[in-house]
């Protein structure tokens, strides 16, 4: 066995131990440890990705040398490794981009606790990506929830504590349903490892036994993870949690935490139940319908919102809708589109959050829509970055959002009876996206009167004032252009990865 094959396990362990270590360090040191860990994990994941690409097949890593039905396993394929790399890159940029806000909004004595949470969150995300065992997935889903809750409530005001409470309640409902579905599957198949469950489900499918319990367990798992990733009717906690928490938390929560659950669901669809069984079960049609409703309603709510942070948060509801719609199409290309959109949305939404905070910084830290008038001139880089993010979300060619919309449309055309609904929803949602994003872009490039600026005491922010955030913004813009212009190899990568899933 090559040494590289140990790296997924080592990266999970490294981020897990960095958590407790941060609790005894000072805030400053913990920050560097955290950045070093994210960087190291990213590099290790890249090495694993290169290894898996060179061998061309996934491998299974036994934990503690116990063979299959007894031991716990990690499974690494192209999709898992590339997701790990992307998650690390985006998390790294979110942490750099939000460092000023963290220092302003988090008490000095609690600073190191923030990094404990971030390290544990990274650990749980990696474990969700790599694990081949359903119950391990459940445990790390809970760790993920607790860490995310800590990220929300670290900024101490009434809003964030209430948002964290609501987040916990919804998450607990979701994980309760997920656990119940998991126990049903264990009951039916007698296994917890994903590959073994899939074999047993195949047999059950052929004999036609336990049809209803299998269906119920698929439903419970899908609904549970849909609640946790804030699919439309379950999104009530989301705007407060993203709108009032500190910047890096909001960016990480919207771009990574909810995506981790969606990725787990994709994995369960392909690796645990088998996609043909899912297709027969009609569960995906329900996800499809709610995805489409979410695409529309999320955008409508965003249009009505006057707080820019909450507006971007509502846009997340719409984008999660896209991902579920792609899954709901029930075709290979639909799933590829969804996986691509997971990455594209993660890159764009964190860019938007960081850029929006740059704009509010130039507007006296006010998140009100009308205070942002002319903010694009006062903070030039943030203005450009926000425009890039908006264009990407709307689906302007060259940017990542365009490719994912194109893939969704292609998947829709090939999907037969769902074609009309998909295309209409895509068109409608694009227009709605354009309404609120372009409205904001026009607002930030409308010059404000000198008198008002003096009266409100708004100052310009140059790149030298915010070196860390500027670097993060430039990287985000490059990442967006990279995903948009280099979409062909990316799509092929995700396609290969999904093919390895089956």
């Amino acid at each position, binding site marked *: 066995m090559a040494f590289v094959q140990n790296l997924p396990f080592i990266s999970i362990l490294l981020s897990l131990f960095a958590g407790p270590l941060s609790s005894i360090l000072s805030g400053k040191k913990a920050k560097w440890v955290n950045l070093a860990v994210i960087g190291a994990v990213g590099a290790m994941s890249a090495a694993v990705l290169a290894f898996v690409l060179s061998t061309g097949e996934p491998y299974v890593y036994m934990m503690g040398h116990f063979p299959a039905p007894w031991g716990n396993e990690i499974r690494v394929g192209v999709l898992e490794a590339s997701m790990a790399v992307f998650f690390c890159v985006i998390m790294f940029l979110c942490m750099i981009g939000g460092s000023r806000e963290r220092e302003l909004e988090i008490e000095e004595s609690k600073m190191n606790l923030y990094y404990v949470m971030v390290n544990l969150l990274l650990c749980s995300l990696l474990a969700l990506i790599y694990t081949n065992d359903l*119950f391990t997935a*459940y*445990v790390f889903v*809970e760790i993920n*929830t*607790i860490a995310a*809750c800590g990220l929300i*409530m670290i900024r101490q*005001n*009434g*809003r964030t*504590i*209430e948002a*964290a*409470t*609501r987040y*916990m*309640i919804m998450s*607990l*409902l979701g994980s*309760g*349903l997920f*656990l*119940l579905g998991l*126990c049903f599957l*264990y*009951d039916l198949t007698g296994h*917890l490892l994903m590959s073994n469950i899939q074999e047993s489900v195949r047999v059950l499918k052929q004999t036609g036994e336990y049809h209803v319990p299998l269906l119920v367990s698929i439903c419970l798992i899908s609904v549970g993870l849909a609640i946790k990733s804030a699919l439309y009717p379950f999104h009530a906690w989301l705007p407060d949690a993203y709108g*009032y928490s500190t910047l890096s938390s909001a960016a990480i929560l919207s771009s990574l935490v909810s995506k981790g659950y969606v990725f787990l669901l994709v994995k369960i669809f392909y690796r645990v139940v088998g996609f043909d069984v899912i297709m027969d079960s009609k569960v995906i049609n329900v996800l499809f319908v709610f995805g489409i409703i979410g695409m529309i309603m999320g955008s409508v709510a965003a249009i009505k919102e006057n707080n820019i942070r909450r507006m971007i948060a509502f846009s997340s509801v719409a984008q999660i809708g896209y991902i579920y719609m792609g899954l709901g199409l029930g075709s290979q290309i639909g799933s590829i589109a969804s996986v691509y959109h997971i990455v594209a949305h993660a890159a764009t939404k964190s860019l938007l959050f960081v850029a929006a905070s740059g704009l509010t910084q130039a507007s006296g830290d006010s998140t009100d829509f009308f205070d942002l008038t002319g903010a694009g001139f006062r903070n030039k880089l943030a203005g450009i970055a926000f425009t890039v993010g908006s264009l990407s979300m709307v689906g302007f060619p060259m940017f990542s959002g365009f490719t994912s919309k194109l893939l969704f449309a292609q998947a829709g055309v090939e999907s037969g009876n769902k074609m009309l609904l998909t295309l209409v929803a895509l068109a409608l949602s694009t227009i709605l996206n354009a309404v609120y994003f372009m409205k904001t872009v026009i607002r930030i490039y409308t010059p404000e009167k000198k008198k008002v600026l003096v009266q409100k005491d708004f100052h310009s922010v140059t790149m030298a004032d915010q070196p860390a955030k500027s670097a993060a913004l430039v990287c985000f813009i490059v990442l967006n252009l990279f995903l948009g212009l280099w979409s062909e190899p990316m799509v092929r990568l995700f396609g290969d990865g999904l093919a390895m899933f089956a």
Partner: protein
Amino acid sequence: MDFANLMNNYEEAVAMILFGIGFSNLLLQKNLIKKIIGFNIMDTAMYLFLALKGYIAGRKAPIVVDGIQSVEAYINPIPSGLVLTGIVVSVSVTALMLSLTVRLYRRYHTLDLDKITTQLKKEGL
């Protein structure tokens, strides 16, 4: 519908009813403490379900005391292990929820989540 199976597996039915009670309490109660109680009922129902799945009538807990090594003598230990893991998870989540509740109560002097939201809107934060 075949109700004979329901009577044979009435323990599982009880576990599911308890799960429903806990779930609806967690979802619908306004009082935060009642929500947490609901959550605990929900998780306990899961443990009951898992324990039932591991139990084989007439066998003992898988602890070797009198030298019997045969697999036939013992129940399935894996669900018991899952229950233990689940208990750890639910204890930590309960502690976190309780600490959030304490913080909210100190700030707003009420346990009603809806009232807290109304007060937040009044503060205009």
